[in-house]
């Protein structure tokens, strides 16, 4: 008790200036990052033809929900939303479990295959066969195209995340593993019952990375499932909407003339509405993950 009081007393003197300056710096950062975001939201709620004139701040000039209407009137969107959620959840769970399992085994110094597997894994981040060979593998050799599994199977592992988790595990006290081993636990049980729960902060971080990556992915739909509209993901559908709205402006050949073709929502508002729609689910899920890596874990009991 007295120790803590001593600390508090020491802190009191100088600790008014620093938090103040720190708070100010962070507020400034919030301002310069928040402004463009609010600007995007404002444009998305603005009338399309008015928005092309530019100069909108953080509040719509001519309020309209036309951009959202044009996104949500498509009967496809509910199915696409479901596909997106399904792929994101399944990919995230599989990826986090498999990647952390691998990370644990590669963190064991005594493991004989550690070096060679690590090397093989790490190189995957740098060697890339290119679009065409990958496409041929997945669509021709493995015949995954035009199926849901093309969203899951090729994305079950990420080396970057594996290394992040491995680094975290390395930082945990070695005694944990050793005492468990003395108790007769096998490596899998040590991983699953001791290491995995302790890794929550980093797993939450990795889960966020994987989920955002999977949620935002549209290129695989274009490559493999473009002809199967019931397998469209939300991002792909939104991407289509954007492309279509830009198309109506470039239509050199369509004889229904550009003058008459004054669509109420223009690419600018659609683009912003799409940004809002795609970011919103992440924004909703974020606080649940954030809890783990902002507040921190109390490791005291274990470490002691």
């Amino acid at each position, binding site marked *: 008790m007295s120790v803590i009081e001593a600390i508090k007393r020491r802190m009191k003197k100088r600790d008014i200036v620093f938090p103040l300056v720190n708070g100010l710096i962070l507020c400034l950062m919030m301002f310069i990052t*928040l402004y463009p975001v609010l600007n995007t939201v404002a444009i998305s709620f603005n009338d399309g033809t008015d928005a092309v004139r530019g100069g909108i701040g953080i509040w719509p000039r001519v309020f309209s929900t036309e951009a959202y209407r044009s996104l949500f009137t498509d009967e496809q969107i509910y199915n696409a939303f479901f596909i997106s959620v399904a792929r994101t959840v399944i990919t995230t769970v599989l990826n986090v479990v498999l990647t952390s399992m*691998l990370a644990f085994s590669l963190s064991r110094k005594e493991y004989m295959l550690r*070096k060679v*597997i690590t090397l093989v894994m790490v190189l995957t*981040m740098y060697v890339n066969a290119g679009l*065409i060979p990958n496409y041929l*593998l997945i669509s021709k050799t493995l015949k995954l195209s035009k199926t849901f599994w093309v969203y899951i199977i090729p994305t079950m592992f990420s080396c970057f995340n594996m290394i992040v988790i491995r680094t975290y595990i390395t930082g945990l006290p070695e005694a944990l593993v050793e005492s468990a081993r003395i108790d007769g636990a096998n490596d899998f049980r040590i991983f699953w019952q001791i290491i995995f729960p302790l890794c929550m902060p980093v797993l939450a971080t990795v889960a966020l990375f994987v989920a955002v990556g999977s949620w935002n992915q549209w290129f695989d739909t274009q490559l493999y499932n473009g002809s199967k509209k019931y397998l469209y993901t939300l991002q792909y559908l939104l991407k289509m909407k954007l492309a279509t709205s830009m198309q109506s402006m470039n239509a050199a050949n369509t004889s229904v003339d550009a003058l008459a073709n004054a669509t109420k929502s223009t690419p600018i508002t659609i683009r*912003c509405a799409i940004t809002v729609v795609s970011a919103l689910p992440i924004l909703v899920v974020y606080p649940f993950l954030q809890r783990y890596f*902002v507040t*921190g874990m109390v490791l005291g009991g274990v470490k002691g």
Partner: protein
Amino acid sequence: MKTIWEQKWLMLMSVPMLLYVLLFNYYPMWGWRYAFQNLDLNNFKQGADWVGLENFQWLFGRDDFLMSIRNTLAMSVINLVFGTLSSILLAILLNEVRTRAFKRTVQTVTYLPHFLSMVIVVGMAQNMFSSNGVVNSLLLSLGIVDQPVFWLGEGKYFWWLVGIINVWKEVGWNSIIYISTMTSIDPTLYEAAAIDGAGRFKRILHVTLPGIKSTFVVLLIMNIGHLMEAGFELQYLLGNPQVYDNSRTIDVFVMEYGVSNGKFGRAIAAGMFKSCVAIVLLFAANFIAKKLDEDTLI
């Protein structure tokens, strides 16, 4: 043999992933043979001809490809230095915040730009840096310049614009990993430091920074291997013919002279070159880290 049996669980947890990676990441590398063929859309069916090093000769015979290598490296280094420093700085500042609600709010707000599409970000940047944009108005009113600076039309500014935009867009997102690492720092270390009479800056220096050191080193080695990847979209959107000599990255070059006219041989040759350089850089960085007795990647 005995070790194998003892380590059977570790093997079960890793060998299936090894096979998976061999199939999805290494097997397609058989496609690298196309780098030595004149593969394009007209001859893929009957099979392209072997042309030896012709694709590589074509690439390295072009001044603008060499320029794109220079631009890629320059922008990567700028991104790496600024990006790392800014995200660590943000993480440290956040770590010092005691009000939980404020900490969470700042964190949530600063990571938001990560979700803005590059098109939107570039659009805003172009408005800000135009002749009568915010930046020039500010500089003019402060008397730093007496003529608006032509930020977007002069090559010498391009790399730095890319650096600034990247930091702004990703600083919050990149700091997440450091913030989560800081949570694993034992709080008693801070208490001990405080008792020893360490001030706030000393504590940051002696407790926080060492606590994230291994993450920092590992990420650094990883990113050094990625120096050949400076990005595509930002340069593609922000660049214009006036600044091409400074704006084109390898990826932009490959898109323009490989993919969009169906010359896949060239695209794959450029990709192969990039991969080889990346591996050399990676091993070099890893070797240096090992010499310095730091954590290593491999």
